[in-house]
């Protein structure tokens, strides 16, 4: 179960819509695993509608900011502008931090559709999302 504050949820949806038709990416952070109370939108250095890559230096800057704010990185998110909200083969191979949740936001239909997964050993398991106030 992943709990996300309403504010973070709304900011995340805004971010991925703003980056459309390219993929958007970023981190969410919280006081404990399974919680997302802070959002760190990041740059997709691929600037592509079918790929995303985070820049390592920016990742470490975000990590330092999270440490300063007393939160841990708990979620990596990215969007699928034209495909469903499920991990692609590339996602399953390359998203390898087993401690994170991975949110994928699909913009393939009118409404943004958001799902969260745990990925381990190349396999994904969907987890429930609860939006909290």
């Amino acid at each position: 179960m992943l709990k996300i504050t309403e504010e973070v949820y709304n900011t995340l949806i805004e971010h991925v819509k703003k980056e459309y038709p390219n993929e958007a990416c970023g981190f969410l952070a919280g006081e404990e695993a399974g919680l997302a109370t802070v959002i760190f939108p990041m740059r997709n250095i691929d600037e592509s509608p079918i790929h995303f890559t985070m820049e390592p230096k920016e990742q470490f800057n975000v990590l330092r900011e999270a440490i300063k704010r007393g939160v841990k990185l708990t979620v990596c998110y990215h969007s699928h502008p034209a495909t469903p909200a499920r991990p692609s083969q590339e996602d399953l191979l390359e998203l390898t931090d087993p401690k994170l949740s991975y949110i994928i936001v699909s913009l393939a239909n009118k409404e943004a559709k958001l799902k969260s997964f745990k990925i381990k050993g190349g396999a994904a398991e969907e987890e429930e999302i609860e939006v909290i106030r």
Partner: protein
Amino acid sequence: MNLLINGEKKTFADGINIAQLLKVEDVESPDMVSVQFNGEFLKRHEYDAAYPKDNDEVNFLYFMGGG
């Protein structure tokens, strides 16, 4: 010795190098992480020769990319 790992204070055996530390931290694919040792990026071939001292800071993050 005590080290700050991704902002969290943890205790490790003295004499551990970065490659061993990543194993202790359950990193199964060291090729998929970037490491900063006291704020400086380490190259992968430097992991075996980098030995943190008490109160050093080691941050590591997985590559984040996909499709």
